[in-house]
């Protein structure tokens, strides 16, 4: 049951994030929606590696062999966070520059090339 809830949340985050991007009229809002899409991948990866009744995959204070959640997906999530942070920072820098140039943040009013 809880497993189903996890996958449903993943799908919901992906859907709502994409919906937000499609309908967005503000670049900052759009970058936020992209982060929501990304959050769905975090949850998916963590959900895949999760084991019931298992501790963190650190065997410093308990013996090796005790049940632990999958450390590989956690490493993947960590890399994912780094990539997400890079992309978000870059996007926000671009948005700032764009705002300086055009005075607008409306994705609908700024086009890459004019007619």
């Amino acid at each position: 049951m809880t497993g189903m809830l996890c996958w449903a949340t993943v799908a919901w985050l992906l859907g709502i994030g994409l919906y937000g991007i499609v309908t967005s009229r503000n670049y900052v809002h759009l970058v936020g929606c992209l982060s929501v899409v990304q959050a769905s991948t975090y949850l998916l990866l963590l959900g895949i590696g999760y084991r019931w009744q298992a501790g963190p995959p650190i065997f410093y204070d308990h013996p090796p062999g005790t049940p632990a959640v999958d450390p590989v997906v956690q490493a993947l999530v960590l890399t994912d966070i780094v990539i997400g942070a890079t992309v978000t920072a870059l996007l926000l820098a671009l948005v700032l520059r764009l705002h300086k140039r055009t005075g607008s943040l409306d994705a609908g009013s700024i086009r890459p090339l004019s007619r």
Partner: protein
Amino acid sequence: MSVWGLPGLVPLPVVLPLVVAGVLLAFSKLLPARLPDAIAVLTTVTVSGLCADFALHIGDQPLVYWFGGWTPRDGQVLGISFAVDPAGAILGAFSGLLFTCSLIFAWGYYDEVHAHFHVLMLLFMAGMVGFCLTHDLFNMFVWFEVMSVAAFALTGYALRSSSLVGALNFTVINTIGSYLILAGIGLLYAQGGALDFSALAQAVAKTPADPVLTAAFALVAMGFLIKAAQVPFQPWLADAHAVAPSPVSVIFSGIMVPLGLFGLARMVCDVFAASPEVHRVATTLLLGMGALTAVLGGVMALIQRHIKRLLAFSTISHTGIMMIGLASLNRVGLAGLLAYLIGHGLVKASLFMVAGIIEARCVGTDEIGLRGAGRPFWAVGIVMAVGALMLAGLPLGLMKIGSEQIVGAAHAFRQGGTGAVLIGAACTGAAVLRVAGRVFGGFGPVPGEEKRAPTEQEREKADRPLSLMLAPTLLLLMLAVLPAESGRAFLDHAATMLRHASDVRDLVPGSATGGLASPSARRGELAAPVMRTIGPWISVGLAIVIAVYHLGRSRIQPAINKGVDRVLGPWVEVLQGLHGGLIGDYVAWVVVGLAVFAVTCAFA
């Protein structure tokens, strides 16, 4: 001399540019003006040479390197490896060559920004080579991200509002693609319990019909198709490539976009080699998408007036042609994909350099506004015209081998692909030929449908020496035109190894891999001898006819022109509107693509 026999050198083509980039960044303020140029060129030449050396000296087994010595133990894969096969190595060498030419082309282009341009370019190349050589799914994803982030930053480099919007569109769409790939990787790991290609392939071979695996494939494939700009994910490419600085567009169109297809080829032929479901989805859906992309890209190129945007649409069209080769999933089609990828990359890179020369010399990229402006340096126009004819399918060099094999494979496999290849090639060739005639010959005073296209006035640094810009342009075009028959055997070998990378045929007797190999592949080699010999000339002829018609509108009765405009106008408006630069629309198309993929996978 060969470095073969020193497997420890395998990571060097990736490590070297990363280290040099770091050093350049640290000392960027101290280095004299031209030193970063020289260091960067030296690095790219070294990387290209190393990869070429790998490519030429690999036998029937890929060259494997386990990072940190984490070799598999008791059949359990724990570490991450690079496995250099001829296909990956030759693409690494090719990207090194393109970066070298692009850096020479850009010599002195970015004086004011210290070495930041070179740092980004070297990071870009490191990501690309790592992507080509890796044998681990997540590692492949990370290299693709390194490549993408460098590309995003380079697109917006000029900081004009058009390039900022182009970079934003590029970043958002490609990042969505990345997240889809990551979700697919997660599902694959959940079912396969590994990230190494071979280990995953074995896991797939055990449960080939698992719907979760098919879903994983759909997600990963969608991600790569977004990056390879296939219909309906294509519009971002035109926005990004049109506004990026020309030396960067050279890399984008020359290799970065087609690499998405290479990644997909690795997925289909390596990880999912044993899954008949995936092969069924891949053959039907990829062939259809490729054919549609080839035609749509060609038509869109014909109705552009911004020269770089026109070339960008031509890249979309040719990537579609490559996809037709990939969709056949046999050795001939894959060899065709590799040959076409490199041949097209050489031609398109030199054409983007010509666009850069026009931009630097004539201060503008608007085809109609620049009519006749190129007359003082008409020799460049000849380069452009030759490039245009190559795009149209002139049977020369690597592109000839590539299109022959793609047409052969598509013909054996299903008839539909051949026509799309010819139409796509003819349209893009005609479009570029028209630009050459108009800008360098002063023909075509009466514009046609292209006058409705978006454009802008941009300017690139104009006081660079023409010789430094022309030398790499000519070199690339010469390499593209040179006879490449001796490369046929190598490409064949590379495609064979790419197709049987994980060699899971023994695990699953009579599975999709084995079944696909025999009859269709053999027919592919023999098929369509007529199409092979006259096909290229049909598309070249068609390209010349279209270009002559477009340039000769002033000699036709104005009433006829007006009538044609009235008929085609609304359609052109619709097509332009679909590529209107609005990010929300593009993402809506991504969602449509997601739905198409889901439906196809459900009913495959």
